[in-house]
């Protein structure tokens, strides 16, 4: 019969089968851990500042003369979770289009960063914002008012994209 034996009898030696020495070893390991410095933080008081490579909440880049976004909807198309809705409209600026409505449903967003990757204008980038709490579903749908972030605050990410994208 073609049976693959992998019983405790085959695997373990005499001392291991006795359990007790191994148990003592295991207990020793945990005991040593107890005297190590905790790795966790006191979260609300101590906050972690992510680096540029962190993929937090996606935001729109706001330049001095308005948003970079031209409402091409590529982010919306590529989004695997269908979190982004864009409505374009015409402006008199050199780039003829702008998003009259840009909404990201943060309940759908999976922070994959595809939107940022596909964006031809580098207008949508992943921010460092990871503190996302909502009390109802409507709040989780972020419009332009919450999405537009001045470019100065996004330098780390833009620098990261310049070097590694």
């Amino acid at each position, binding site marked *: 019969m073609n049976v693959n034996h992998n019983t405790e009898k085959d695997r373990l030696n005499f001392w291991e089968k006795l359990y007790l020495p191994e148990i003592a070893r295991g207990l020793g390991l945990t005991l040593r851990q107890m005297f190590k410095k905790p790795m966790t933080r006191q979260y609300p008081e101590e906050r972690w500042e992510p680096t540029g490579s962190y993929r937090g909440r996606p935001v729109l880049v706001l330049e001095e003369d308005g948003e970079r976004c*031209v409402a091409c909807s590529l982010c919306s198309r590529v989004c695997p979770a269908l979190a982004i809705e864009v409505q374009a409209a015409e402006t008199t600026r050199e780039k*003829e*289009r702008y998003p009259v409505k840009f909404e990201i449903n943060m309940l759908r967003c999976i922070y994959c960063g595809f939107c940022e990757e596909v964006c031809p204008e580098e207008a949508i980038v992943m921010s460092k914002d990871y503190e996302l709490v909502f009390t109802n579903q409507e709040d989780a749908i972020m419009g332009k008012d919450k999405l537009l972030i001045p470019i100065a605050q996004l330098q780390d990410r833009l620098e990261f994209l310049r070097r590694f994208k």
Partner: protein
Amino acid sequence: MVIDTQGQRTEHAQNAIMEFLLINHPLDCPICDEAGECKLQEYAFLHSKGQSRFNEKKNHKDKRVELGPNVMFDGERCISCSRCIRFADEVAKQPVLTFVQRGDHVTIETFPGTTFDSPYSMNVNDICPVGALTSMDFRFASRVWEMSFTDSICPGCSRGCNIKVGVRNNEILRLEPRTNMHVNEYWMCDDARLTQYKFVNENRVSSPMIRKGNTLVSASWQDATAQAAELLKKFKPSEIMVVGSARATNEDNYLLAKFAHNTLKTNNIDFLRHVDNAFGDNFLRTNDRTPNAHGAAEVGVKHETSGVSMDHLAEKIKQRSIKALYVMDGDIAANSTLTAALSDLDCLIVHASNHNSTTERAHVVLASTTYAELEGTFTNMNKRVQYVQPAVATQDHERIEGMQMSRWDKFGASNDRWARGERRNCHQNWEIVQDIANAFGAGWHYSDSGSVFKDIANHVSAFSGMSYDLLQEYQGLTLGKAGSPEPKGVVYQSNYMKPN
């Protein structure tokens, strides 16, 4: 001669041609309306290496030139194919477009002092292989891939042009022609593009209404149909006039005629013609502004010698020999001869899709579908019966029940704002008629438009042999000639990346 369409040398040549085409073409795809249905984009995707060796500065041209009231021209995107010039010359018969300049400075202009305002001008937006010519009405309204496109028939005139209805979030954003060599070839008129979708989106009667005192209040379908039946029962058959509609489908009119003859037992039946002598031309547009005048008459909604005709209706109302009016046509009060007469009626029951002057006077308003929400058939001026299917969801019929769906429609949930487009509480005309007839004890049970059409095919000789499947397969059949359909033309699929 042997032509290689594949192989290394061919690919090399294709790459080279694409590189030339793209030398001066801007990287506008993100903001270009044509993206997603652009031939150049498709070719670039298929035949280009995706890189250019062109390091020099690209030519810049004017980006926002209004060639006509509905056509916007972007000089940089133009690849100088001259399709629009030929269209203006040969189809629209308004030869105002031409190339100017030479070499890579070539661009398109109108002759000085002219504008490209032909009633068919917007067709150049469709035939333009790139996004150089775009519709000013649709400009930036939506990406192509966000919409669903449903085959339909234009209800704007009796030509019955084959169209596609572009819908996003249950709202029609644009109409475009669908090739049918026996009806409209590749074209449709600007008027239809600009007017035949807004009334579906706006000013709708979104639920049945009953008059209480001076105001109309929303009611349930049960209450509204019961009220309508109750009102009609108060009158003698000869006091009731039933008005069919050339804007409604064959199915609607057939059941209405059956209702008038068998249930109400009245001979007073006719429909109102909407003729606009200024509209027709010798190409596609016709004076009869309704899609189904032929069909309505064919299935039984026509003046009978013993009954009252539309022409005498106002007079008969004045004489008090007609006291109740059952109207399927949306807006008969707009007809100047009838406007005054309507207020003398004791009972006005109207099927309406939009609020108008008739609904203001009605005692019962029954919310009906527009052409974009129903399934049925229209018979055009050449007696061609053509199939219409729903493109917009209602409370009764969701998209999931076999309608065309975009990616957004497929995955939308109740908490997505982009999936909340209004679903109206409207019924197809024949469904309303059936409900009222059943309130009279008619005992009809048509389950869908198809079963009504089957009844028509069995009872109206001109329709015999027709079915929805055949109508879809041959893009329409001529009355009485279901056995010998016109040959199906080869329909060239011009934008294979476009949805549906």
